[in-house]
């Protein structure tokens, strides 16, 4: 599913188990943090570029930080609990 990001928001708590394979475009330089409330897969591909181009299998309370360059959301860091 495509995760919807808002240019005015920087912090999200996704509460769904459906895999994220895209994030809506916002503004270049926009940084966001996702804190997952349940296990969820984030797919590296499409407009999401994760470290090592490897999908992330997020668990509850894991964090994923991303920055948007105008086309692609790039991972900047992650914390796995």
């Amino acid at each position, binding site marked *: 599913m495509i995760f919807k990001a808002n240019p005015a928001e920087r912090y999200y708590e996704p509460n769904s188990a459906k895999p994220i394979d895209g994030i809506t475009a916002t503004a*270049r330089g926009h940084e966001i943090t996702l804190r997952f409330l349940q296990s969820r897969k984030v797919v590296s591909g499409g407009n999401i570029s994760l470290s090592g181009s490897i999908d992330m299998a997020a668990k509850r309370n894991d964090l994923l*930080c991303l920055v948007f360059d105008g086309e692609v959301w790039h991972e900047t860091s992650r914390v796995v609990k």
Partner: protein
Amino acid sequence: MPSVTLDVSAVYPDATSLGAYVSWTQSSQSSAPLGTPVDTSTVSSGEVTFDNLTEDETYLAVGQVSGAWVKYGFTVNLSPPGVLVNGVELATQEALDAEVSTRASADSSLDTRTDATEADIAVLNEFINVKNYGCVGDGTTDDTTAWNAALAAAEAATGSGAKVVAPSGSYLLDGEINFDQFVTFEGAGARETILKLNDAGSSIHFNEYGGATNSRGGEVSGFHIDGQNLATTCMDVHHSVNRNFRDFRVSRPGEDGIALLVRAAQNCNFIGFDAEATRATLNTTGIKVTESSGSCRFSKYSLNEFSYADIHVTQDTAGGQEGIGYPEPRFISFDDGIVERGVTTTACLIRVHSGRDLWFTRQVLALGVGDTVSAGYNIVEVNDDGAGATTRQIYFDMGHTAGCTSSAKYSTAFDISGSVDTYTSIRRWQFGNNLEGVNIASGQTCTVKDYNNTSTTTMFPGIDPNTQTKTAANTISTMDPQIDYYEVSGNTTINTLNATYSGHQIVLKFSGTPTVSSSAGNLKLSGLVDMSATADDLLCLVCDGTNWHETSRVVK
């Protein structure tokens, strides 16, 4: 024997002669006075002269009105009370009484006063009713001369606080009227006291030219200035200092006209007002602030349908005005405004052409649903007018730029351009139904933070305000404290980034293959080991005020 001349035209309009008595009685109201007058004299041109009175005695003047003997009269006291009114010494009691009668309001008990005192005059000096100076207020009689007479009386009365009052009515003005220093004005309300300007040259001025005699102080409230699509300038605030304008309305300036012109004014507040134009073809402006005005506030206003600009801030005159010290308007606050239009033109709602430190907060800037503006229409335009002044430090905080509809989008919400850097900042802003959000021209610094876009097609058609591109170099010295995201090209080793502020967090995204050195400059990377970046790698840093510390990195 002293001689006394009295103006009796108001009291005895048709008397042919009067008698002066020490005392008098009548057997009935229609009977002639009993007793013998001290003096009798003929009334000529409304005046009568008694020649046979004794100084410091009290007399009564008695005469007939329409054939009947009246029961009231003058008290003639030759010892002058010596009350100074409007620069004229009122030497006699009847002069005092007459002054009170003339200047009193509709209170009939004052009309026949025979015992007016200096205190009465003092009270009247505080409230000067324009209708007591000949204003008719019927919407058809020219009241210009009477208005200026009332204002002249107010200025002369005390020099420090006379209040002019204008009851409900429509006052037609074929010329200019001038509120000068210290005069306070109170109308009956923005829908009650209407000043109708009857030609292009008619105007209401709040001014006093020249240096130390600037128009200072004075509250002004409760009126409506109607330019009737004729007046070039409806309300002109010029060289005013420390004035407060409240609860007023200005409407319908004429061709190329201005509803509210503020020039070379300082420390003035305009609170609770609205301005409106009605004809799209007249090229009108709602508020124009110019000629080095400073430290002024506009608050709680609504502006509607002006066809050149609803708000226009500009230097206007090369070199500015005397005595202020800088050429362009500065330190001006526009707060809590609703600006709307429903006419088809190529106007702007806000034009900033020169000015410094201008704040626009809590603004609703809306085009009407039916507006059919063409592409390129700017809701807000920040520019410079090339008159020698500059435009910089312009702040927009909390507002909404609304285009027409989601299916008919033509407008650019903000157009930031000009030949000099304007340093514009936009915060907490809603962009709705615009064709373009913020169009930033080359050479301009503009930051846009905390915004929301509901249906704007392209947010940043020009420079993207949220990113900067850098070329890798040993030292990158142009780090911007307002920018958090940098795209770095090139392969040169990076040793140093100029520090910004403690706590500033940034992301560097590389497109080349530079080495980021952790030993030669102020970059403190993980393990103090250099990073050999490749394309699409990211390095995140935080500044401690001197050095940049790695917080994370992502290597692709």
